[in-house]
């Protein structure tokens, strides 16, 4: 496991590189040492050779001088003295050389001294015998003696020289042995190191090539993503851009150019160039937003106008934020969409809305004024009819009295209708003031409004405790009054009306009738009466304006009351539903959001 981790880590290649360097240094060090040793080795061989050669030369020179001496001894010719003299010098030189060569070795130095002794002895005897040879014959005893000692010395010299040569040879041999030992190891080192390095390099190679493959794959998918991004931009009608915060370089995507009506990358990507295309009126606000964006590292969606290449005005919306890439650079990335359609649609919707509102307001005002102003003349008619009735009733004929009666009835109906219409128009007024109100109080007020009828019909009204809520108090009071009024009006002849009012808190989801995607909690208030009820199939129709289930002779009514109730409930973002059974009673359920 650990090995795999090491293999995968990014330090791996770096460490291999370092190890390889070390290996190279190591190998070169070892090789250098090897070469050095070889160098030294040959040097010593040369040295030994030089020494030995010189020693031989020395002996040769000695021999020459001896030969010269012998020649002279035999011939007494002075021409044989020349080599003797020459060799004398050569011997000295040669010996000096040998001395120099063997300086380093204490054993040899000892030998040199010995040799020096013998040499000088020999020289002495040589010269002594030469001296004698001048005057005495060969058979001279003294001369012979000298010659014999000379010969013995020569032999000693010979032995000494051979010893020295042998010593040199041994020295050389020893050195050779020690060197060979050292040298033997070198190849092993080199081969092992080489092997290890080769292994490491292979591993690196594998790793590198795998990484390369990965990179290739990433690059491929990146290229594909880039392409799909570009396509997405074209389809989605937006462009993207980047700003390297440090280097201040902008990059605009191809589609950014197209959005402006230009060919991709047709001008240098910079803020000034982009600014040139912005609508003159929006330039300053855009610049301000831009500056703020550079400070905050974030731009909330900002809408502005640009003028396209074809001189058309378009609406753009830009949003941006900062991201930091793996190298630690801060890049501001942004998206700019062409939202012209959206803006235009929304503008036109706004316009339509305003028109609708104005129209509604007009209609509402008309409704109100009409209802209100119609009341005046109506009241007059009623008043004067009543005065007429009071003053002139006895002067009227039977049909006259009847006509008066009918006039009164019609006028009364009209009055109620106008009253109801006025009430209806009041519930649709735009300004609605919500106040925290006690619904129990509003219910009490509603009851006292209808108190007369309650007393007449001996009605019993029971209610549970109602909550306090934010409502339009007069409207809720109206709502309650209308519902109670209805229950009283549509009561059974023989039975005293009973109205039960309940209240509970419910959750929208648990109630079938309430549409699902609405506010959660509601107060459910129900008005249950024991009146004549109605067919359940009409449960929705009764809330329609002017819709009635009975004709005007059976029950007086305008068909507006429940429409008003529905409007009021809608003003409070609530719901109202009706359920009933003929001859059993009716239940009105109101849902008011909390």
């Amino acid at each position, binding site marked *: 496991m650990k090995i795999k981790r090491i293999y995968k880590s990014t330090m791996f290649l770096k460490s291999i590189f370092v190890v390889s360097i070390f290996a190279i240094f190591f190998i070169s060090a070892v090789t250098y040492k090897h070469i050095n040793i070889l160098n030294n080795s040959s040097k010593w061989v040369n040295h030994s050779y030089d020494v030995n050669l010189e020693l031989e030369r020395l002996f040769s020179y000695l021999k020459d001088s001896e030969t010269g001496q012998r020649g002279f001894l035999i011939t007494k010719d002075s021409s044989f003295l020349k080599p003797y003299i020459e060799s004398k010098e050569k011997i000295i030189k040669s010996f000096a050389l040998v001395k120099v060569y063997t300086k380093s070795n204490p054993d040899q130095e000892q030998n040199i001294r010995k040799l020096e002794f013998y040499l000088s002895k020999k020289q002495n005897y040589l010269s002594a015998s030469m001296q004698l040879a001048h005057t005495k014959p060969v058979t001279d005893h003294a001369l012979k003696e000298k010659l014999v000692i000379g010969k013995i010395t020569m032999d000693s010299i010979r032995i000494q020289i051979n010893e020295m040569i042998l010593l040199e040879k041994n020295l050389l041999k020893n050195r050779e042995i020690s060197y060979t030992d050292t040298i033997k190891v070198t190849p092993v080192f080199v081969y092992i190191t080489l092997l290890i390095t080769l292994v490491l390099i292979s591993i690196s190679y594998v790793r590198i090539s795998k990484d390369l493959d990965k990179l290739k794959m990433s690059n491929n998918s990146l290229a594909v993503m880039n392409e799909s991004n570009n396509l997405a931009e074209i389809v989605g009608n937006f462009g993207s851009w980047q700003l390297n915060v440090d280097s201040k370089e902008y990059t605009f995507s191809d589609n950014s150019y197209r959005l402006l009506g230009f060919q991709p990358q047709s001008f240098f990507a910079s803020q000034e160039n982009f600014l040139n295309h912005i609508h003159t009126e929006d330039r300053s606000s855009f610049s301000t937003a831009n500056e703020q964006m550079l400070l905050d590292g974030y731009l909330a969606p900002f809408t502005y106008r640009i003028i396209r290449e074809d001189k058309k005005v378009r609406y753009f919306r830009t949003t941006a934020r900062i991201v930091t890439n793996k190298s630690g650079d801060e890049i501001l990335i942004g998206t700019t969409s062409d939202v012209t359609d959206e803006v235009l649609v929304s503008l036109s919707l706004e316009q339509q809305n305003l028109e609708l509102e104005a129209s509604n307001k007009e209609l509402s005002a008309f409704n109100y004024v009409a209802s209100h102003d119609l009341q005046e003349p109506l009241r007059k008619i009623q008043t004067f009819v009543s005065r007429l009735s009071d003053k002139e009733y006895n002067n009227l004929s039977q049909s006259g009295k009847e006509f008066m009666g009918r006039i009164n009835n019609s006028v009364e109906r009209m009055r109620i209708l106008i009253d109801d219409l006025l009430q209806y128009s009041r519930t649709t007024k735009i300004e609605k003031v919500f106040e925290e109100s006690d619904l129990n109080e509003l219910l009490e007020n509603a009851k*006292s409004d209808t108190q007369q009828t309650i007393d007449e019909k001996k009605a019993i009204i029971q209610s549970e405790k109602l909550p306090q809520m934010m409502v339009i108090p007069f409207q809720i009071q109206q709502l309650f009054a209308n519902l109670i009024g209805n229950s009283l009006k549509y009561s059974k002849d023989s039975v005293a009306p009973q109205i039960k009012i309940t209240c509970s808190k419910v959750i929208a989801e648990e109630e079938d009738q309430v549409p699902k995607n609405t506010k959660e909690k509601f107060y459910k208030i129900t008005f249950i009466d024991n009146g004549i009820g109605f067919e359940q199939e009409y449960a929705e129709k009764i809330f329609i304006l002017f819709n009635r289930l009975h004709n005007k002779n059976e029950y007086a009514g305008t068909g507006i009351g429940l429409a008003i109730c529905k409007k009021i409930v809608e003003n409070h973002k609530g719901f109202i539903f009706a359920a009933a059974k003929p001859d059993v009673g009716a239940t009105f359920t109101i849902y008011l959001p909390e």
Partner: protein
Amino acid sequence: MKIYVKFDFNSVCRKVLEEKLIKYNVKYRVLGFGEIDILEKIDSAVLKSFTEELKEYGIDIIENQKTVLVQKIKDTIVEMIHNSDLVNVKSSVYLAEKLSHSYGYLSNLFSDVTYTSIENYIIMQKIEFAKQLIVSTDLSLTEIAFQLNYSSVAHLSTQFKNATGITPSGFQRIITKRREIANKK
């Protein structure tokens, strides 16, 4: 700076009366509420200017015996309503006792003079007192109903609405809103 005052009508009247009496140097003795014994004869001119000055304060000198009694009935009724001990007492019994006349007589007299019945007057005063309590105290309607011997808030509301055309809570709202406007000024 604002200060809120409550009038003790009776003390104010008494004070004015006394001041005037002293001013005119009239020797007097207070016999009861609304009754003063003048201990010496007063010149009719003095009496006239005295009467007029009192009138400026809304204080009338009642000359008529009937009107005196009616005034006494009114005062007794007011006393009954404001006195928590008397709340449970039957008004007809109390009045008859206190004023030493039969209730029937008092009732007729009252209607003749005031054009309204004692019962109506009692209701009016009760409602007035309720209004006062609503305006000047923090009592809830339930507490006020109790204090005025109504069987329930609903009963008080009904009578209140019958008398004034407004519910007690509506009245409360209006008074509160009036105060808010006055405060803003």
